[in-house]
């Protein structure tokens, strides 16, 4: 399938490891020129060096900081002359119950995963409008659709991301900026490695138990990979997905339970 992505410029936040890095690699393979960002210079440089890509730039930015996000968009456009695809991927998963999560932790989570994409959208919109369109894809962990008692920060923040995607899609569609989401669950990545450690400490399950149980819980009976997410992102970013707006694709082995 020809995705028509050759020569397009894609910015991926949180692109230095795991799912974000896989997305950057996948889009590079499809011929995109790639911008990634990260908070630490060392990690960022490593990621840029890792990517097999003809044309990649790395920018230091913390998506929690609106000034950083504005600079990130400007830097990308200055470097490449345009911007066609934004993948908002930065943000982790925060487990915990309401009495165990500090207010500051929740606020920072909201800043990373809602205010960050908000600022990305606000700053990229003038460029995409001038170019006649673009793609804005948000990675939303499946706690947004499947609330969990022990993951209230991510449950609340991810649900807000869904509302943001739909509302933004309604606003941007007339300018041919298509806004969609990809919803991962049970993906092997540094993030889920961290979660296993958390559950080992707090639930007393070994890493092996945790890994096999999570695999067993999901209908497909196994874990997915960052590449699975990257493929869905590449499809949604492509010319082949020009009538898809304001929706999301689950990449979760069948985890979420809604029939709609």
């Amino acid at each position, binding site marked *: *399938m020809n*995705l028509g992505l050759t020569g397009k410029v894609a910015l991926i936040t949180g692109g230095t490891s795991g799912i974000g890095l896989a997305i950057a690699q996948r889009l590079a393979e*499809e011929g995109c020129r790639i911008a990634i960002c990260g908070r630490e210079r060392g990690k960022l440089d490593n990621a840029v060096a890792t990517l097999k890509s003809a044309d990649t730039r790395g920018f230091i930015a913390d998506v929690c900081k609106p000034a950083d996000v504005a600079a990130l968009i400007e830097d990308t456009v200055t470097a490449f002359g345009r911007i066609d695809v934004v993948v908002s991927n930065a943000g982790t998963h925060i487990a915990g119950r309401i009495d165990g999560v500090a207010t500051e932790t929740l606020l920072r989570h909201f800043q990373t995963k809602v205010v960050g994409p908000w600022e990305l959208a606000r700053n990229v919109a003038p460029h995409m409008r001038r170019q006649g369109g673009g793609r804005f894809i948000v990675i939303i962990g499946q706690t*947004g*659709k499947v609330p969990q008692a022990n993951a209230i920060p991510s449950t609340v923040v991810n649900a807000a991301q*869904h*509302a943001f995607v*739909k509302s933004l*899609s*309604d606003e941007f*569609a*007339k300018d*041919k900026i*298509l806004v969609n989401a990809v919803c991962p669950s*049970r*993906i092997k990545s540094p993030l889920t490695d961290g979660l296993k450690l958390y559950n080992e400490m707090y639930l007393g399950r070994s890493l092996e138990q945790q890994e096999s149980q999570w695999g067993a819980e999901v*209908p*497909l*009976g196994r874990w*997915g*990979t960052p590449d*699975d997410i990257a*493929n*869905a992102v*590449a*499809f949604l970013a*492509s010319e*082949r*997905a*020009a*009538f*898809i*707006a*304001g*929706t*999301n*694709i*689950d*990449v*979760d*082995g*069948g985890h*979420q*339970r*809604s*029939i*709609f």
Partner: protein
Amino acid sequence: MDLGLRGKVAVVTGASRGIGRAIANALLNEGCAVAICGRNAERLNAAVADLSDNGARVIGVPTDVTSEAAVGKFVGAAVEAFGRIDILVNNAGTHIRGTVETTTPAILEAQLRDKVFGFFAMIQAVLPVMERQRDGRIVNIVGQAARHPHPDRFPSGVTNAAVMAMTKSVADAVARDNIRVNAVCPQYIESELLASLIAREMRERNVDRATASAGFTRANPLGRTGTPEEVADLVSFLVSDRSNFTTGSSVSIDGGYHRYVFG
């Protein structure tokens, strides 16, 4: 993107025209062998003749999917011709409008027979083949009346919601056999179906074609109709090796029409 579909065998129902035919064509272009069916033999044969350009491997079997015997014959012919079945796209069935007051039991029953029983029969017929292969990909085409059961879409609203439940239930049941089941939910796609709806608007509201068409294109945020080819591209992605961790999901392709935040 290499979808990994070369050499796979696909079965597509309702593929003489419109969305089904575009899906068959897209899968042929990706290197699949394709078996198609339709009720009208003449239309089906014309589609097979068109699709077989360039030596593509395609067969057609006139089939009414509401007949279990006919479904068995169709699936048997596909296996006989191509040796296996990797992909099933359940697409046969139309969109029927009507309110709770204007819908007769016969209309509702016909819609349920086409889409609930028709999809069910096809799934039951291909599952043994896919289970043997430990690999299969099923996509149900389910119009957005499932998510938006407007008062004048009673037959389709009720029927399509049942097909969504079938999609999730079957996905859960066969996931451990490495068979993935998903739904693709189109709305406002340029097809004979949409043309007939526009014609009906012109007739019933006594408006010209531009006015009647505008009502449909204005209804979604993108402000245009989609094409059968765009639906076919989404189906191709979901049945491909690039989508191996997605099952029990439904993906809307409707220009942003649906109002669900999570769907």
